[in-house]
């Protein structure tokens, strides 16, 4: 039968087309993010609430004259215990938010019903997951900036180092933190519910990575385990950059493991995604909710 329609679609495959599709995913995420204004409230309140719990506990334990803080300084080397705690809790919140946001991004699309319609297009499918990270990273940078501003204004926390060095450490940590998020997103599509895993991972970060104390206080086996968790290096590196004026050389012991973990977690995250994609084609998991 003759048809007036071309047997090929308008679409033109290629790297640039995939790149433009990735840009479209980023733009879509950004637009949707901006259309839920409640995030503004979280952005201003959460940076204060969570660290306050530890800061007030620290104040209570330091005694009426604050003399206990000297012991804290001796143990940690930090003169500003509030800044010390804020960096630890901010990293914990970063990892936590990535697990919820990136980790559940595909699942949320699946429940909305849009995952299948994305999956039906000829675009490189990993870009759907990558696209979620763009607005997430921007919102996290805003979160960290507002944290610094609030604690600077309200508690007098002052940086004694370079903002660029802090950003460098954060940049080095991004692949590891988001690689775990990618692996997690693939797991969530497969098992549908993974709250228990989020609680486990953030619990591990809370206990092992020294968010409010130096890991030297931990028993030996716990310290060894902590060395396998990227947030340990991120927290240590950020503290050194923020309060000890550490330069690139001093930060290398944190930057190198972070980069290595980044490569490892990106590979694991991508592999988990490919496995999930393959499994979904066999089981129909993409359309299930």
């Amino acid at each position: 039968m003759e048809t007036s329609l071309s047997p090929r679609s308008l679409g033109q495959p290629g790297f640039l087309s995939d790149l433009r599709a990735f840009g479209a995913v980023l733009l879509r995420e950004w637009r949707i993010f901006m259309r839920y204004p409640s995030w503004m409230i979280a952005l201003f309140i959460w940076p204060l609430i969570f660290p306050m719990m530890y800061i007030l506990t620290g104040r209570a334990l330091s005694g009426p004259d604050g003399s206990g803080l000297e012991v804290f300084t001796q143990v940690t080397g930090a003169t500003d215990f509030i800044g010390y705690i804020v960096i630890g809790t901010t990293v914990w919140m970063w990892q936590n938010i990535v697990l919820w946001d990136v980790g559940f991004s595909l699942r949320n699309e699946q429940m909305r019903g849009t995952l299948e319609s994305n999956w039906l297009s000829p675009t490189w499918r990993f870009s759907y997951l990558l696209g979620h990270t763009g607005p997430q990273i921007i919102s996290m940078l805003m979160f960290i900036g507002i944290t610094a501003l609030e604690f600077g204004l309200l508690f007098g926390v002052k940086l004694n180092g370079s903002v660029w060095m802090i950003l460098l450490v954060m940049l080095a940590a991004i692949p590891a933190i988001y690689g775990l998020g990618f692996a997690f997103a693939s797991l969530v599509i497969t098992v549908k519910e993974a709250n228990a895993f989020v609680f486990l991972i953030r619990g591990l970060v809370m206990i092992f990575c020294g968010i409010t104390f130096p890991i030297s206080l931990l028993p030996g086996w716990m310290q060894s385990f902590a060395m396998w968790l990227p947030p340990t290096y991120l927290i240590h590196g950020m503290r050194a950059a923020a309060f000890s004026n550490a330069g690139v050389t001093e930060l290398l012991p944190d930057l190198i493991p972070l980069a290595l973990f980044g490569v490892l977690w990106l590979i694991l995250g991508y592999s988990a995604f490919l496995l999930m994609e393959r499994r979904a084609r066999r089981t129909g998991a993409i359309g299930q909710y």
Partner: protein
Amino acid sequence: MSDFAIEANQLVKKFPARPGTSNPSPLHPSPGGRGDGGEGDSEGSRKLKRRHWPFGRREPKAMFTAVNGVDLQIQRGEIFGLLGPNGAGKSTTIRMLCTLLEPTSGTARVNGFDIVKQANDVRRSLGTLLAGERSIYWKLSGRENLEYFAALYHIPQPIAKNRVEELIERMELKDRANELVEKYSTGMRQRVAVAKALLARPPILLLDEPTLGLDPQAARRLRELIAELKQEGHTILLTTHYMEEADLLSDRIGIIDSGKVIALDTPEGLKHRIEQKEVIRLEVTGWHDEIADKLKSISGIENLISRQEGEADLWEVNMQAHNSRAAIPRIVEHISGNGTRLVNMNIVKPSLEDVFIHLTGKALRD
């Protein structure tokens, strides 16, 4: 290039069965009730075969056969209707053809491309409407949705811009194209979803229940659009619960039940199969199962289907008869009394739905 737009040979799809469930299909129905709730199977494989495996070796997984050897050859430019009751295997078949699912065995080609080995080429050839209004983003505007999907389908930007405007115009969305989709009516959302399927000007369209949930006017407009798309040369694979829709639009219809295509013909050809039969349609109040059993026992009566009409106690009962004149006095005799009242009775020409009932023993909307 293959002669056929879609060609499937002995497509089979098996899923691991879920233990302890009566609905082992992994394809859940959507909240709106669309899609296949539990995919069907043939007699033999319907029973979940879980053999006992001695000496500690892992028991082989029980499998559920959702599609059991489907053969299809859909011509370029035709509208092919795929009909089947819930759980017949329609959605699984469509999901295999659009590369969301990999077949367990068998092969299929879409626009000449293998659905497993050339999945991306298949996706480029297809426009799909699978989850209707849920397939688009409600927090984006109609225009933003179309621009987004145009990028996903790799349509070059200048072409995409024109195409989006053209489709907005065609779908009569111009006045509200910049409003968020969440403010649209169901019909408007469905039109955005159809526009999304048409963005890349794909030669083949898969439309899964395109008019489900639409008001009659919106459904009529969409049916007109489907007919126009055929005129433009699109091949359309359509699944629907609405017999009249399939009858009206389809060049050919495949009836699928228990994972197999049990009949495939033009709508007229299918109706011709039961032309020698008559359909007796009753409207009764106070209907109950005992009467159904009595009517089924009348010689020459078969395929009796009853369904309640709306909220009131009014039932429509359809049955097929070889000789309605002989059967009617006995039908009236059985229905009278016991609180049951005959409200209306007609003898009608067999419709496509009667063919369906004849072939599957169940109504499409069961």
